[in-house]
């Protein structure tokens, strides 16, 4: 049940994002003052239009592209950077490991969203910078989980056996330890994905991150606040899209964890 609902929602959002140019016949940026703030169900605008007469369906669909793109990039960056740092700090003992873990402690002394927001306010607005800020604030989870796994995996007999056979340390790490840690990386990635998508929306909502007129769910919700009294649909649909995305990915992540790594708590 969990699995199928999660899979259906996730696939649905991915397909909607990929086929946005065909699903929405209208350009999400084209304004049309004559038909501004039309309610859902208006001819040609199934979800209505916003204050500038832009088609809401098109904007929500293109918003899915942006959200998934940011989520995927951030997960990729944090998985590689955090995963590598976790591998190294678990495998190599001594000061580099201590330094990495102290850095992780420092990052964990800030609430995630506050750290990502502050970094974003400093590095600046735009797509590249939001990915950078979320990655800078989010790699720690991987580093910690992977380090913990490596610490236990490297004590296993097959690792000792490989070392006794004269396998070099880099090969030992990437051929014998990494494949056994990989399931945890996959589980963390799926559980982090929705956190990144929601955080990006929250940061854009607060006025940083992705700026209008780019159709991002967060900045659309932010703009919708001024029209809450007259146009509920501007707040309802982008938020529902965001919630459904988060729901689908969360369910999929839960299922992955139950299947691959039931003991993992993130």
């Amino acid at each position, binding site marked *: 049940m969990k699995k199928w609902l999660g899979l259906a929602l996730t696939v649905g959002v991915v397909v909607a994002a990929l086929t946005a140019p065909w699903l929405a016949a209208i350009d999400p940026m084209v304004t049309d003052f004559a038909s501004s703030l039309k309610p859902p169900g208006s001819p040609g605008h199934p979800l209505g239009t916003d204050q500038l007469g832009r088609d809401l369906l098109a904007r929500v669909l293109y918003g899915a592209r942006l959200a998934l793109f940011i989520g995927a990039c951030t997960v990729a960056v944090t998985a590689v950077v955090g995963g590598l740092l976790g591998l190294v700090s678990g495998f190599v003992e001594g000061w580099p490991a201590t330094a990495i873990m102290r850095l992780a402690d*420092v990052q964990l*002394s800030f609430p995630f*969203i506050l750290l990502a927001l*502050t970094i974003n306010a400093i*590095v600046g607005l735009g797509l590249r910078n939001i990915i950078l800020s979320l990655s800078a604030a989010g790699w720690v989870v991987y580093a910690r989980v992977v380090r913990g796994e490596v610490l236990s995996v490297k004590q296993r007999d097959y690792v000792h056996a490989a070392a006794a056979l004269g396998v070099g340390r880099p090969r030992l790490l990437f051929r014998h330890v990494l494949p056994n840690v990989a399931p945890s990386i996959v589980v963390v990635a799926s559980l982090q994905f929705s956190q990144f998508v929601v955080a990006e929306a929250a940061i854009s909502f607060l006025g940083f991150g992705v700026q209008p007129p780019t159709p991002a769910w967060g900045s659309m919700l932010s703009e919708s606040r001024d029209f*809450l*009294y007259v146009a509920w649909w501007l707040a309802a649909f982008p938020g529902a899209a*965001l*919630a459904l995305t988060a729901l689908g990915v969360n369910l999929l992540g839960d299922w992955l964890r139950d299947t691959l790594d039931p003991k993992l708590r993130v």
Partner: protein
Amino acid sequence: MRAWIAARLAQTVLVVVLSLTAVFGMVRLAGDPVLLFMPMDIQAKDVNEYRQRLGFNDPVLVQYARFMQGAVRGDFGESLRYRRDALGLVLERLPATLLLAGTAMLLTLTVAVPLGVVTAVRRDRAVDHAGTVLTVLGQAIPGFWLGLMLIYVFAVQLRWLPTGGMGGLAHLVMPSIVLAAFYAARVARLTRSAVLDALGEDYVLTARAKGLAERRVVGKHALRNSAIPIVTLAGLEAGQLLGGAVVTETIFAWPGLGRLTVQALLNRDFPLVMAAVSFTSIVYTLMNLVVDLLYGWLDPRVRSRA
């Protein structure tokens, strides 16, 4: 035990010092605070005078030393916008955030923990399924969207509650529900799995075998033993309320620390940003320390592991 506490304290002090360094480093990376704050058409002479007055002309190391010295004494300098002691502004906003977070916590404890227990005891029954749907939704629905929808229904349409601001009890209802939603959903799930774990233990079997009423088996044996993981994880997660407050307070125009931080960031008021972020980080770190010490006290195995 004493050595363990000392080690944890020393580690906390180190983390706080490093976090303050990180805050200083982040803000310095942003560029010249005066130029960023000032209007575009200001004259160079005025910029320089301002810079000199605030000490931004000194070498970075000197500024760092001054920042750390000030931080120890609770002096983060003067807000560029409000021309007042930055930490004073932060402390002024603190009670509002504490009230909001405290209410959210209370809501969580009175709703989420019982929900977790009931869904564990009635596993795979209708209550359990309904509870699961609720907690899964609670974790997926972003707080700021929930906030907007609640405002639309209860403030715009029904006119039962105010849209925002701080005042009577009515003002507290929506912000605390929004802040609690995600946290409560997590706590309910944690409670459910902890109680389920405990119900599978031998001592529960023994208690049942000797004929104890189910109410006592759950209340006395299962719940007592699952209290440790619940308290720990709930405590660790409680820090996230400080992060959630940033968004929640902005939606509901709640005059707390989170909204102050967002406004300071938007205004590029960097002394105030430093004060607010440092303060939040220190509170967060201390909360984690308290939870850790509590855990070590409840469960001796933790002490030996560290």
